[in-house]
């Protein structure tokens, strides 16, 4: 069963525990600027929105990669960057219409959320269950997918 991060901004308090957990696991230190998940703070709305890769079906990043450094895990559907293959050309960073694959200057490679191999640290670190790891059928995901569809430069297929 494919699972995805289901984010409920209504529950987010803006504590950034997700960013700390992510950066610790991925970068080996507490460093929100290197986190694959980022909490946006809409101060005048009193709203906090955790934001990261939706592992979209279109996989713009994967398609755009000129050296096959990004693959889709056949079971989980997660798009993974293979560091040994990534040359750091950054084409994926402009191709991804969500802006969720980013260049890491220190490593010279791109980085993105990979669900920590099926046990996402951000989910475990969130004190308010604003980030859950659930089946893709969960509400909300479909809507994100619809939006993703709008960014496709192919119009919806009539018969797919």
């Amino acid at each position: 069963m494919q699972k995805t991060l289901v984010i409920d901004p209504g529950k987010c308090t803006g504590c950034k525990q997700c960013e700390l957990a992510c950066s610790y696991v991925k970068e080996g230190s507490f460093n929100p600027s290197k986190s694959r998940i980022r909490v946006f703070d809409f101060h005048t709305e009193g709203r906090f929105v955790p934001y990261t890769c939706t592992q979209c079906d279109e996989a713009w990043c994967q398609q755009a990669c000129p050296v096959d450094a990004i693959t889709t895990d056949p079971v989980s559907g997660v798009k993974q960057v293979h560091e040994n293959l990534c040359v750091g050309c950054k084409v994926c960073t402009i191709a991804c219409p969500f802006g969720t694959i980013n260049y890491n200057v220190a490593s010279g490679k791109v980085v993105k959320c990979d669900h920590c191999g099926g046990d996402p640290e951000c989910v475990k670190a969130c004190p308010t269950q604003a980030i859950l790891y659930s089946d893709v059928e969960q509400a909300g995901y479909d809507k994100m997918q619809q939006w993703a569809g709008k960014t496709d430069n192919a119009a919806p297929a009539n018969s797919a």
Partner: protein
Amino acid sequence: MKHVIIGAGPAGVVAAETLRRHNAKCSITLIGNEGKPPYSRMALPYLLIDRIAEPGTYLRQSPGHYDDLKIEYVQANVAAVDPDKKTITLDEGAPLAYDRLLLATGAHPIKPPIKGLDLPGVHTCWTLDDADEIGALAKSGAHVVLMGAGFIGSIILEALVLKGVTLSVVEMEDRMVPRMMDEVAGNMLKSWCTSKGVNILTGTKITEISQGDDGLNVTLDKGNIPAAQLVVVAAGVRSNIDFLKGSGVETKEGVMVDDHLQTNIEGIYAAGDVAQAKDLSTGDFNVLAIQPTAVEHGRIAAMNMGGLDTPHRGSLSMNVLDTLGLISSSFGQWMGEKGSDSATMVDKTNYRYLRLEFQGDCLIGAQSVGLSEHIGMLRGLIQSGTHLGNWKQILMTSPHRISEAYVSTLHKNAS
């Protein structure tokens, strides 16, 4: 159904894979002509600096990838296309029949009509072979002249500097990357490169190259530079369409295609650098020789070839560049258009720049320097035509808040 794809760049390979994904049985033939597995020109600069070995440039990494997908990979030059007989002629061997044909022959670097560009030591940087030859000449301490500071030139620029050469860049336009960025950004890049010890000559033309005692003498329309051990020509590219002469396939700058990426002849499609296809921003038909467009074309053309009616809305022009550590990008109508609102933030001291172009409350173009976080959002906003509502006004004075605007409007649209 027999599908033949001419050209084994990203457009061709993605098309072959897409065909296979949607049809397990059809016959797919992919034709390359460089005697190599399909590889990516985007990766050449990284090969030059030994960050990767040649296999690292291959478009697909798993061995047996094409065999596994039952994609027949053929090495040949295509001499002609005969739409009446539905065959193509190869330079060797028997003609090849097709039911559907994809022209994905890409482009080739332009060699401007300047005397001396055929001399040894003058190279374009387009193929694996080119990279080998440049690599051999670009020795530490050598003086290298790079002709052209467009997108491709600027990508090679970094690799050359990292090789330890002394570099002079000669660009005839008034700034670097003139077709990707405006004066502010182009000059920011120039000043950055200059500060890193690269001699950038803009508004300057190479008039002649000749063999001298110390190397190649490069004559300029103004000023002088030392003799060079290597001249790299990056003066733009042109679609590979010569083989279509007389075929009846309509060409202008590239192969003209409709909104299904089909040419004027039924059953023949074109994709990638060779296709003159719809530009999302303008609605005009242009050659958009960039990697993401090649991939999109390949996928959409293949869907249509396979019988899945898939209109092409148009591709979005976009580029990202890393110039000696300074990252820049441009998207869509970055130069704005008539009646568009422009918001800019300039920080020359710290080499940061952001320019947003709006039509109404929609983003239609953008360029950035010194920003690399979430830049894909710029594409997302332009391509989706998202109405930014109140955020438009905020962005007019605070363009740096673009990612907040994006997430905010994305959530409103998604919920």
